[in-house]
C-alpha cells in the first residue's frame, strides 16, 4: 500500500513538472495578451486566422492565446508570479510604473534586428523611451481634440445639414467653421448651448464636459494650460527640472475653468468625473462637447448606441495668446520581463500578422483590411488612424485602405488630421501621473467652491509636487 502511495506521488510530481516545461515540441512559445475573449467571436476568429498563418510561416513558434485586459489591480500580482503574457497591451499612463517594477523589458535589439527602429515615429518613440532604452511599440497614436455631439449642436442651431446629405455639417455654406477654434469661443459656445437647451427644451445639458478625477482632471488640464501658454515643468538656471504648476498662464487656464463652472454654468455639476464619463455624457446627450483622443471616438457609439453621424472631432482650440497644442501619445504594446530575446522577436513578428508593424507585405495588407471589416461589422466608426510607423510605403498602404473603409463624413474630422502633426506635444517628462493626481485636487476645488482662489491653489499644488516628487528628479 505504501509503495502504491509512493508511486502515485512520484507520478503526480513527474506530471506536474512536465506540465511546467516552457516549450512544447521544442517550439518557442509566445503568449499574446491582446487576444480577444472567445465571446467576441468575430475578433476571435480573426486572431485564430492570424495565428494559423503565422505558425505556417514560422514553424519554430507557437502562438498561445492569453486574453488579458490590462487593469492595475490584476497586473501586479500576475507579473509578480511571472505569468504576464509575452506581449500585452496596456494604457499610455503605465509604462514608467511597469518599468520601475521590472515587469517589462526593453526591445531595442530586436527592433533593430527587424530594421523597424528607424520607421518608428520619433514622438511615440520618446514616450516609450526610458533611460535611453525603448520598452514598447505603440498600437496607434492619439492626440487630444474636441469631440462634438452634432445632434445637440443642431438642436441649438449651431450646425445644420446644409448640403442635404443627411449628415450635419460643421462648416456653414460659406465654409466658415461652426465649431470653437479658440478658448474664448469654446466658453461662449458652451454657455450658449447650456442656456439654450434649458430654455428651448428644458434639458440639463453641459456645453462642455471636463473630467476631474482618477488623474483625468490633471491630464486634461495640462493640455488646456499649455494652450494658455503654460509649461508645467521647466529647467531652472542650473539645468534642474522643477515644477511650474503656478505658471501665470496655468493660473489663467484655471480661472477659465472656474468661469466655465460658476459664471457660464456650462460644465456638469459633478466634480468626480472620470474617463468613462465623457463618452457617457456625450453618448446620452448630456454634454455637447468633450476633450478626448482620436483613438477613443468609437466609445460613445459602441457603449451608448450613439449614431456615428452625430459625432465630429476637431482640433484643440487655440489659447488666448496664440498657443495651440494637442497632448500626444500612443497606446503601447509591451513585453514581459520574463520573455527571452527569441520570444520578443516572435511577438514582434506576430504584429505583422495583426497589421501593426511597418511591414507592407500581403499578409499585413490583408490584416489591415480584415481589422476594418470586423470593425465595420460591429458598427464602429472607421476614421484614419495615426500610425506609429512613418515609412512612406506603410503610410501609403494604410491611407489607401482607409480610403476604402472610412464610414464617416471626413469633413467633420479632417481639420484634426490636418493640424495634429503641427500641434502635438508629449506629456510633461517627470511624474506625470502624480502631477495629474495633484492637479485633480485643484480642479475639484475650483469646481466645488465658487470662491476658490486659482493662484493660491496652484501655488500650493506646485509646492507639494516639487517637495514630494520633483526634488527626486535631480538627485
Amino acid at each position, binding site marked *: 500500500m505504501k509503495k502504491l502511495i509512493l508511486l502515485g506521488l512520484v507520478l503526480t510530481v513527474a506530471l506536474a513538472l512536465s506540465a511546467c516545461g516552457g516549450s512544447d515540441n521544442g517550439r518557442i512559445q509566445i503568449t499574446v495578451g491582446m487576444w480577444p475573449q472567445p465571446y467576441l467571436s468575430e475578433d476571435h476568429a480573426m486572431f485564430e486566422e492570424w495565428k494559423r498563418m503565422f505558425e505556417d510561416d514560422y514553424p519554430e513558434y507557437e502562438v498561445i492565446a492569453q486574453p488579458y485586459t490590462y487593469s492595475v489591480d490584476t497586473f501586479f500580482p500576475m507579473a509578480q508570479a511571472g505569468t504576464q503574457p509575452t506581449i500585452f497591451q496596456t494604457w499610455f499612463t503605465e509604462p514608467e510604473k511597469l518599468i520601475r517594477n521590472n515587469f517589462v523589458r526593453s526591445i531595442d535589439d530586436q527592433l533593430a534586428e527587424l530594421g523597424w527602429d528607424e520607421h518608428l515615429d520619433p514622438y511615440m518613440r520618446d514616450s516609450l523611451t526610458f533611460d535611453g532604452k525603448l520598452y514598447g511599440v505603440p498600437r496607434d497614436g492619439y492626440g487630444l481634440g474636441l469631440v462634438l455631439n452634432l445632434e445637440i449642436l443642431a438642436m441649438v442651431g449651431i450646425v445644420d445639414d446644409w448640403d442635404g446629405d443627411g449628415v450635419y455639417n460643421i462648416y456653414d455654406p460659406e465654409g466658415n467653421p461652426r465649431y470653437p477654434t479658440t478658448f474664448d469661443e469654446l466658453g461662449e459656445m458652451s454657455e450658449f448651448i447650456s442656456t439654450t437647451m434649458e430654455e428651448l427644451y428644458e434639458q440639463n445639458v453641459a456645453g462642455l464636459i471636463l473630467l476631474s478625477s482618477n488623474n483625468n482632471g490633471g491630464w486634461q488640464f495640462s493640455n488646456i494650460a499649455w494652450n494658455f501658454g503654460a509649461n508645467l515643468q521647466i529647467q531652472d538656471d542650473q539645468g534642474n527640472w522643477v515644477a511650474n504648476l503656478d505658471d501665470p498662464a496655468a493660473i489663467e487656464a484655471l480661472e477659465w475653468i472656474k468661469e466655465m463652472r460658476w459664471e457660464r454654468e456650462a460644465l456638469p455639476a*459633478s466634480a468626480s468625473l472620470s474617463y468613462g464619463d465623457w463618452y457617457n455624457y456625450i453618448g446620452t446627450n448630456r454634454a455637447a462637447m468633450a476633450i478626448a483622443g482620436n483613438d477613443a471616438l468609437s466609445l460613445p457609439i459602441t457603449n451608448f448606441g450613439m449614431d456615428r453621424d452625430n459625432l465630429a472631432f476637431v482640433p484643440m482650440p487655440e489659447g488666448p495668446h496664440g498657443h495651440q497644442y494637442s497632448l500626444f501619445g500612443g497606446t503601447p504594446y509591451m513585453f514581459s520581463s520574463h520573455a527571452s530575446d527569441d520570444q520578443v522577436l516572435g511577438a514582434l513578428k506576430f504584429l505583422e500578422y495583426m497589421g501593426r508593424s511597418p511591414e507592407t507585405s500581403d499578409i499585413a495588407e490583408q490584416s489591415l483590411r480584415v481589422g476594418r471589416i470586423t470593425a465595420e461589422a460591429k458598427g464602429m466608426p472607421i476614421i484614419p488612424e495615426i500610425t506609429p510607423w512613418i515609412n512612406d510605403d506603410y503610410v501609403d498602404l494604410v491611407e489607401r485602405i482607409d480610403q476604402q473603409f472610412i464610414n464617416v463624413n471626413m469633413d467633420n474630422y479632417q481639420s484634426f488630421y490636418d493640424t495634429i502633426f503641427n500641434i502635438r506635444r508629449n506629456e510633461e517628462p517627470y511624474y506625470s501621473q502624480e502631477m495629474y493626481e495633484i492637479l485633480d485636487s485643484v480642479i*475639484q476645488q475650483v469646481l466645488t467652491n465658487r470662491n476658490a482662489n486659482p493662484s493660491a491653489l496652484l501655488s500650493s499644488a506646485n509646492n507639494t509636487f516639487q517637495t514630494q516628487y520633483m526634488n527626486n528628479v535631480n538627485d
Partner: protein
Amino acid sequence: MIASKQKEFLQKNIGGWLIILPSLLLFGFFVWGPLLANVSLSFFHSVGYSREEFVGFDNYREVFNDPVFVKAFFNTLKYTFWSIVIGFFIPILLALVLSEVVHAKGFFRASLFFPNILPGLAVVILWTFLFDPSEGGVFNALLSNFGIGPKPWLNDPGQAIPLIVLTLTWKGAGATTLIYLASIQSIDNTYYEASRIEGASLWQRIRHITLPHLYPLIRMLFILQVINVFQVFYEPLVMTGGGPDNASVSLLQLIYRYAFIQGNAAKAAALGVIVAMMLLILTFGYLKLSKRADNT
C-alpha cells in the same frame, strides 16, 4: 519520564492535531504568511512585490510626509465619527421599534434586511446616481418641486463623508438590526410581564430591561463597527474617487493608490502596517476600558 509524558500527550491528542492541521496550514499560508511578508516588505525598497534593499523606516517617513496621508487619517476618523452618529444608533432604535411591532412583523424584518442582499457596488452606484449634483439629479429634482435649488451633495467636501456613511448605513443597518432583535427576543418575557404589573412605562421597560440586556452586544458591535468603518474602501472609491480635493479619501483607499496607481508596494505595505497598528491600539484600549467597566 518527561519524554514518555509528552509521547502520551501526543498519542492521546493525535486525532485532534490531525483534524486541526489542515486549517493551521491554510491559515499559516494564506493569513499569517502574507501578513508577516507585508510587515517585512514595509522596511525595504520594493521592485514589484520583491524586497530589493533594506531602507529602515524610509517608507514610513514617506507616508507620514505625504499631505494626503494626513487628510486620509482625519477623514477616516470622520468616517468613524459619522458612522457612530448616523449608523450606530439606528439599528438599535429599529430593533426596539420592531420588537414592539405586533402586525406584519415578518414584512418589516424582510424590508429592513432587503438592502443587505443587494451587491455592494450596485448600492453605491445607485446612491451616487441619487446624489447627482446637477439639476437633473434625482434628489435635486425632488427638491426643486419644493422650490429648493440644487444641492451639491457629494460635491461638497463637508457633506461627502456623512453621505457616504448614510449609504453604508442604508445597506448595513438591516443586518445589525436583526442581531439586536434576536437578542431582544431572547429576553425572558416574565421580566416584561412583571414590569407591566408594577406599572412600568414603555421607556422604563426599555431603560431597565431591554438595554441592560443588550449592553454586551452593543459593546461588541460598537468595536466591530469601528474596525469595519476604519477599513472603508470601495464606497469612496466609487462614489467620489476620494474627492473633492481628497475630502473623502480613506486610509485603505490611499493604500490602493500607493500599491496600484503609483506602483509602490513597499509604501503601501508601510501604510498597511500603520493602519493595523491604529486598529490594534483602538482594540486594546477598548478592551481595557470595558474590562475596567466590568470590574466596577
